[in-house]
């Protein structure tokens, strides 16, 4: 069974469109993340949610809006897509960050390759 799944795997769209990427985890984790991997393969954190609460919001344009309907899902909505948004977006999840007695490994999804034309 897939631990962290993302849909779609590939997304090709025109500039100016609005699109969403979905992420689901079946690990019972409390914390979920979105990372962006650019064309040079550099990975950077975008958002982090813990129990549906936003805890990290890096300097990401307002056009990006994460939405967490429940602990198992963290979706990424992108408005007014731009060429520079083309990248691979990875979702990840981990156990409750507040359990500081041990670090909880992050499990990554397979990624969504977004191409903006």
């Amino acid at each position, binding site marked *: 069974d897939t631990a962290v799944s993302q849909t779609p795997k590939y997304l090709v769209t025109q500039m100016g469109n609005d699109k969403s990427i979905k992420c689901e985890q079946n690990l019972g984790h409390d*914390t979920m993340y979105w990372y962006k991997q650019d064309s*040079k*393969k550099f*990975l950077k*954190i975008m958002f982090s949610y813990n129990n549906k609460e936003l805890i990290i919001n890096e300097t990401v344009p307002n056009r990006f809006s994460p939405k967490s309907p429940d602990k198992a899902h963290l979706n990424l909505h992108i408005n007014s897509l731009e060429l520079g948004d083309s990248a691979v977006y990875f979702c990840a999840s981990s156990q409750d*960050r507040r359990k500081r007695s041990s*670090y909880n490994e992050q499990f990554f999804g*397979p*990624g969504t390759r977004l191409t903006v034309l």
Partner: protein
Amino acid sequence: AQSVTQLDSQVPVFEEAPVELRCNYSSSVSVYLFWYVQYPNQGLQLLLKYLSGSTLVKGINGFEAEFNKSQTSFHLRKPSVHISDTAEYFCAVSRPNSGYALNFGKGTSLLVTP
């Protein structure tokens, strides 16, 4: 703030040769350190991690890494590589004061040839 530097962007190596991928970090506080591997067109897989304790960490696929606090390094090693080890390798540090999100290095592309 924590940052990670991977000193080599590409490392070509012959099959069955040893390899070392270098990683240095900078942080004013204790950190957790990780190595991830990304095979072509796939997601990220954890190779190994250092949280505390023994500075020599063993991971999957025969990889190991050594945490060196004085040199702020966490180099990845494998004594004998296979063709199947060809992939992108990322060193990362976690941010305990900010949700444990990962700060990644820019990656090292390991190319193993016969």
